[in-house]
């Protein structure tokens, strides 16, 4: 473990940073969109969840790579 563990944790942290920013933007824009057009709320929500999942997927790639690093 040792040093590798720390670097892996750092990598996971950076991945989370990006995902946090991305999902934050998606959520914020979705809320704005719903506020402007409340009738489209359900459609916006579905689109938001999909977009958030795609971002999260990328972040989880990062986490998986970090896990790989942790095992090395």
């Amino acid at each position, binding site marked *: 473990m040792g040093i590798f563990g720390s670097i892996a944790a750092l990598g996971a942290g950076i991945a989370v940073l990006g995902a946090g920013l991305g999902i934050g933007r998606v959520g914020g824009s979705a809320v704005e969109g719903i506020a402007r057009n409340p009738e489209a709320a359900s459609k916006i929500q579905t689109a938001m969840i*999909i977009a958030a999942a795609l971002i999260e*997927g990328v972040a*989880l*790639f990062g986490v998986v790579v970090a896990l790989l690093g942790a095992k090395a």
Partner: protein
Amino acid sequence: MPQIGKLSSLLQVIVLALSFTVFQASAYASEEKSFNVNEMIMHHIKDAHEWHITGPEHGGVSVYLPVILHDNGFKVFSSKYFYHGKETEVKLNDSTTYHYLEGVGPAKGYGLYHEEIYKLNHEGKLHFQGDHPHNATPTDLSITKNVASLIIGSLLILIIMLSVARFYRKNGAVAPKGIAKFFEPIIVMVRDDIAKANIDHHKYQKYVPYLLTIFFFIWINNMLGLIPIIPGGANLTGNITITFFLAFCTLLVTVFSGNKNYWGHIFWMPGIPVAMKIFMIPIELIGIITKPFALMVRLFANITAGHIIVLALISIIFINKNYAWAGLSVPMALFISVLEILVAFLQGFLFAMLSSLFIGAAVEEAHH
């Protein structure tokens, strides 16, 4: 509303179960000399040949699952012949030591190291090189914890859905009651919001059974994984093999339902210069694989991460060796567990949704 009532009773179960985890872990921790969080978590999220319930590892209360090996014919025996077998220590020259379990009785001649079964060499030992043994491995078709969980989950889905189907068979097309009332909106949601919304209106019906099966398989197994004790607690949907298989199914469905328009877009993208067309072919071909690959990793990483977070939060108590930390760690673990209920549904929904998006793109007709 009945759904909320069901949810709150589910929550109660989870709170109870969570506190059970704490007691279980405390018993576990007090008997071990040192508590290794990493090892405990990895042990939990990986597959095993036993279903551990309580007490110390190897020797506590646990369900011993059958081992099935194919090595010059099938060999079937209980995994207790490993866990109650001989604990063997191997010391290498560079003073690293490895512990593995040597099988006794019908398991004689095999060794278990990190839940992997190896054939012992002519000296009756595992030969370590690097950090894992280099012995031959028999084909391991054991009913492991994940396989058992898979079978339990599938039976559960089958029982639920057959009783829903029986309601309709008995009562005809009437307003649903009981179990059918709970599941019908979800089934209709999968049909309308997932299948119909993304796949051509004339073709979506063919894919509804697949999407329904995938959605309920992931959802129910996610929920089972959230229950900390048997028959739950296995990290089934957080296992790369399961997610690989599911993503592979989606890949197959997508590829085999792809029409002329779909393949045309891959091999000869319309509307761009010829040089770009040639350049786009490998990119599009890789795209066929990366989409299901992302599905596979998303489900695996989400569920595994959920399990790791809950276990890590509970481990705070044992890292700090003070029960007072339970005041922090249990509410946080509870919060994450509740969040995981949402994630359990969301991941099933997303897997089905993205599958249906890919299928929808594959069967879409050209609209020029």
